[in-house]
C-alpha cells in the first residue's frame, strides 16, 4: 500500500509518520530507561565517593560531562538501532548457551585418535598387577589405583558400553584445550555409542 501524502503530514496506513516513529522508538526507550535507572541505582555509595575523594580521585566536572556525553550517544544509538542490538543479543545468548554446554562437558585427556584396542575388563586386570620387591603396593589390579578402577568400572553399566585402552604419546595434543601432553599417558577409556564418556589413567606425570 502506498503512503498517503498530504500537504501538512505524511501518513502510512492512516497513521501520521511521527506515530510510527514513536512506535519504533518506544521499545528501545523502555530498554534504555530501564538500564539508566539500573545504573543510577547501582551508582557508588556516598561512602565510596567519600573514599575516592579522600584518595584524590574526586570526579571533576569534566568527568561528569564526559559521562553525560557517553550515555547520551549510547542511548541515541540504541534508540535508533535497537532491532540490530536485539538480533545481536539473541545470537550472543545462543552462542553463550552453546559455550556453557561445551564447558560443562567433562574434560578428558583421551581423544578418539588415541584409542588403541577394545579390551575386556578381566583381560585389562590380568596384566595390571604391579610388582614391587619391597611390597609397598597392594596385590590388586592396578595396585594403588584399584579403588579408582572400581569406581570407573561401576560407571560402565550399559550393555553397549565398551572399554578401550589408549595411549597418548608425549607431546601430543590432549584435553579440551589441546595442550601438549608433558609425558606419555596410558589408560582406559569408557566408550558409549562411539563417544568417550569416561577415562581411567594408569600412568602419567
Amino acid at each position, binding site marked *: 500500500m502506498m503512503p498517503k501524502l498530504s500537504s501538512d503530514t505524511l501518513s502510512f496506513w492512516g497513521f501520521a509518520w511521527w506515530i510510527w516513529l514513536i512506535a519504533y522508538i518506544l521499545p528501545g526507550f523502555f530498554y534504555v530507561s530501564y538500564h539508566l535507572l539500573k545504573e543510577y541505582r547501582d551508582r557508588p555509595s556516598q561512602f565510596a565517593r567519600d573514599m575516592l575523594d579522600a584518595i584524590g580521585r574526586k570526579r571533576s566536572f569534566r568527568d561528569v560531562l564526559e559521562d553525560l556525553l557517553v550515555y547520551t550517544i549510547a542511548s541515541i544509538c540504541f534508540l535508533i538501532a535497537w532491532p540490530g542490538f536485539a538480533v545481536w543479543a539473541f545470537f550472543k545468548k545462543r552462542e553463550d548457551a552453546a559455550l556453557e554446554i561445551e564447558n560443562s562437558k567433562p574434560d578428558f585427556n583421551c581423544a578418539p585418535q588415541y584409542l588403541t584396542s577394545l579390551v575386556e575388563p578381566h583381560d585389562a586386570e590380568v596384566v595390571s598387577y*604391579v610388582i*614391587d*620387591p*619391597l611390597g*609397598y*603396593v*597392594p596385590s590388586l589390579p592396578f*595396585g*594403588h*589405583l584399584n*579403588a*579408582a578402577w572400581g*569406581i570407573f568400572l561401576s560407571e560402565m553399566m550399559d550393555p553397549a558400553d565398551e572399554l578401550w585402552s589408549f595411549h597418548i604419546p608425549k607431546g601430543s595434543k590432549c584435553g579440551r584445550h589441546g595442550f601438549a601432553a*608433558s*609425558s*606419555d*599417558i*596410558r589408560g582406559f577409556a569408557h566408550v558409549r555409542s562411539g563417544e568417550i564418556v569416561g577415562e*581411567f*589413567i*594408569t*600412568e*602419567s*606425570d
Partner: protein
Amino acid sequence: MTAQIAERIIVGGKNISLYTNPLSLYLRQNKISFESPNTANWRGYIGTWEIIESGGVERLYLVELSAHKTYLEIVGIPEVFPGFEKVFAHWFTGELRLPQGNMLKYVHGGYASTYEYDLLIQVKQGVVLERTVRKNERPPQTEHEKYLSLLDNDDA
C-alpha cells in the same frame, strides 16, 4: 599465582627440592583433594619422595606426606594409603625435575623459577630409567621486567 612450595626428594641421602608433583594423578583418579593452607601451597600437601634401589632397579617411593585435610588437621600416608607406610609410585611416568645451584631468575608462580642446573630423572611406571643434568641460562628479561628494573634504578 604465588611460587609454590616444592615437594621433597631424598637422593643419595640428601633431602632436596622436587619441582614435580608425582602424587597428582593418584589424587585426581581417586577424587581426593586437600585444603590449601596458604597461597604458596595450593595443592594442600607436601610429599617427600625417595628413590630406593632394589635388585638393581631404582624405584620412586612416597615416604612421607603432610596433607591438610582441613586447615588445622594434617594427615599422612596411613590416612591416604591405608595399610602402607611407604608407597610405590607405579602410576608415575614422566620427568622429575630437581633444581640445583643458584636461582637465576625468580618467577612468582608455580615452579617457574630458573636455577643454574636441573637434575632430570626420567621415570617409567615408577621405575627410574635415566638421569641427566641440564645447564640453564639466565632467561632474557621481558619488556615488563625491563620497565620494572628501570623504575628501580630511577628510585635509586
